[in-house]
């Protein structure tokens, strides 16, 4: 009997320690995302409530779809600007396809915005699609080697040299923003044409077997330039880029003057991309 009581106390003690440790362990699991409530602090009820955005510099983008409709040649220009600068290969088939930015259909980009009376005009709209640079990126959570990671300024970046090619990030990304190098992007097709037409020596080409995606042009931001796609839209205002946390930035002004929507907001990823339809 006495033995039993001792055993019970042992188990109870262990359970108590585990109970105390559990919340902090859970927070470690979601490191840097602070989704699980801290000790005592209750979580916000209802995900319709706006939560306070993190402070500090955070790059963001507003895509004004109206301007893309008005300038039908813009989508191709953006794609070309991005893909040529970043040495994105063209394999010429959807199976091996690698893309950082592309125009897609409204219903593909915003599947939750479905109702019987959807406006006709929406069907033909080219919606520019790229990595959302989420504040709570599921891809970063999934990556087993931290080959994809979130930088302090909100950019979700990739380390092509650390990536093991497990493609867990591709399963985790709810936006289909990631591509995998199914074959050697530095190679040539049967006719001897290289998959990368002209190599830009200022940006690395990738190797076979790693994942890649839009990097918000970190390499250009670092030297004070704006992303290539934004630059390609020129003075049309179709894409506005800037610091979301700076009240005086152009992107903040556009956001405060317009109603914008985001992709799959119910998933709680908090994208840095906003759309004006």
């Amino acid at each position, binding site marked *: 009997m006495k033995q039993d009581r001792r055993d019970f106390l042992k188990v109870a003690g262990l359970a108590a320690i585990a109970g105390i440790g559990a919340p902090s362990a859970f927070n470690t699991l979601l490191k840097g995302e602070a989704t699980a409530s801290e000790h005592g602090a209750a979580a916000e009820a209802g995900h319709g409530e706006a939560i306070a955005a993190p402070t500090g510099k955070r790059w963001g983008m507003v895509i004004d779809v109206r301007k893309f409709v008005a300038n039908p040649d813009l989508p191709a220009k953006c794609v070309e600007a991005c893909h040529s600068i970043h040495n994105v290969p063209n394999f010429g088939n959807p199976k091996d396809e690698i893309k950082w930015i592309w125009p897609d259909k409204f219903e593909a980009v915003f*599947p939750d915005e479905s109702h019987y009376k959807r406006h006709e005009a929406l069907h033909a709209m080219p919606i520019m699609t790229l990595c959302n640079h989420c504040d709570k990126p599921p891809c970063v959570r999934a990556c087993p080697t931290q080959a994809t990671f979130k930088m302090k300024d909100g950019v979700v970046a990739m380390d092509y040299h*650390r*990536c093991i090619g497990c*493609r867990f990030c591709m399963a985790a990304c709810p936006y289909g923003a990631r591509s995998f190098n199914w074959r050697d992007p530095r190679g040539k097709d049967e006719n001897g044409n290289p998959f990368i037409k002209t190599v830009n020596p200022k940006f690395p080409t990738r190797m076979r077997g790693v994942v890649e995606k839009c990097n918000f042009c970190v390499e250009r931001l670092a030297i004070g330039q704006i992303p290539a796609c934004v630059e390609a839209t020129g003075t049309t205002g179709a894409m506005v880029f800037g610091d979301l946390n700076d009240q005086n930035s152009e992107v903040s002004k556009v956001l405060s003057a317009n109603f914008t929507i985001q992709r799959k907001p119910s998933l709680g990823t908090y994208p840095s991309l906003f759309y004006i339809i």
Partner: protein
Amino acid sequence: MIEKALKGGRGYWAWIIFLLAIMGMGGMFYVQQYNYGLGITGMSRDVTWGVYISQFTFLVGVAAGGLMLVLPYYIHHYKDFGRITILGEFMAIAAVIMCLMFILADLGQPIRALNVLLHPTPHSMLFWDMIVLNGYLFLNVVCGWAVLHAEYKGVKYAKWVKYLIYLSIPWAVSIHTVTAFLYCGLPGRHFWLTAILAPRFLASAFAAGPSLLLLVALIMEKTTKFRVGQVAKDKLVTIIGYAALLNFFFVGCEFFVAYYSQIPGHMHTLDYLFWGLTHDGHTYNNLVPFMRASMILGLGAIPLIFIARARQSTGLLALSCIILFVALWIDKGLGLVLGGFVPSMMEGVTEYYPSVQELGITAAVWATGFFVLTLLYKIAIEVKLEQEG
């Protein structure tokens, strides 16, 4: 003890050579894949995991299934499992080895696999999967070998082994739970985003693992002097039957939630798997015959296995084990992983067909698993027969 695997009859060697031939063929395909890249498989930008990862997922279950033999024997002192507990542990070893090989085969940069250790990342479920799988392999190798070696020497195993065996029991649950967490924690993949995924994985594991084991045991009874014992076999049928029932109950729960709630995201994948999905005027349904067969075979196998026991029919028992195993393999080794990618994140449908090379590599990994299993079982039953003399 190893010498026991080096002596055998013609049937034994023919089987070994057969397995080695498949392994060699797969090895050659792997060289091709290694040189060309994973583009040689049927995987695509939309369906980024194929048969490799789905086999891995299924085999984690087979590995965890060993628990159903270890737990009754070591915790509940169910003596009738004494002769087959070791078979459960050895099956777990073979299954985990296959799991690890499938993961390696699926990596775009296999040479960098150890980056997972070099940059440990606790917020990634794949990191934890690596820990639990390797830990489970270690536990089963040590426990299985130590217990068998003690038996070989005619002594009782050392006391420390028992603690590792106790540890291996919750560990078995953990491997399949963490494997389910790979899928069910991803936002946006509605088919996988279900809290019942880990319980469902475990239920199907506890049916699939023991049914494969029972099947192999029946084959060994036919080809060697080894006997499992009627009581143990009957008990296995109980375990398999109830686990399979639980699995289908969980599947039914998934159907209810999807179709009663009528939430499109929850219905789409089930639509695709069981009825086909129409997109842009084309109907995609390449998995429909498999999934329907899985459902019919699985539900049919449950009464069948109990009938086989009631009639004491070895043939019917073997048949029902095969049917159930195949049904569960289709369900988890095919539909679960592939289905999760339909529809794609851009609401499109891309169907997946494995390539010849991919199937060859898959067959070779299975052959390697059976190779390991054969050697280990050969050793185990020789030792057992010798002791019983």
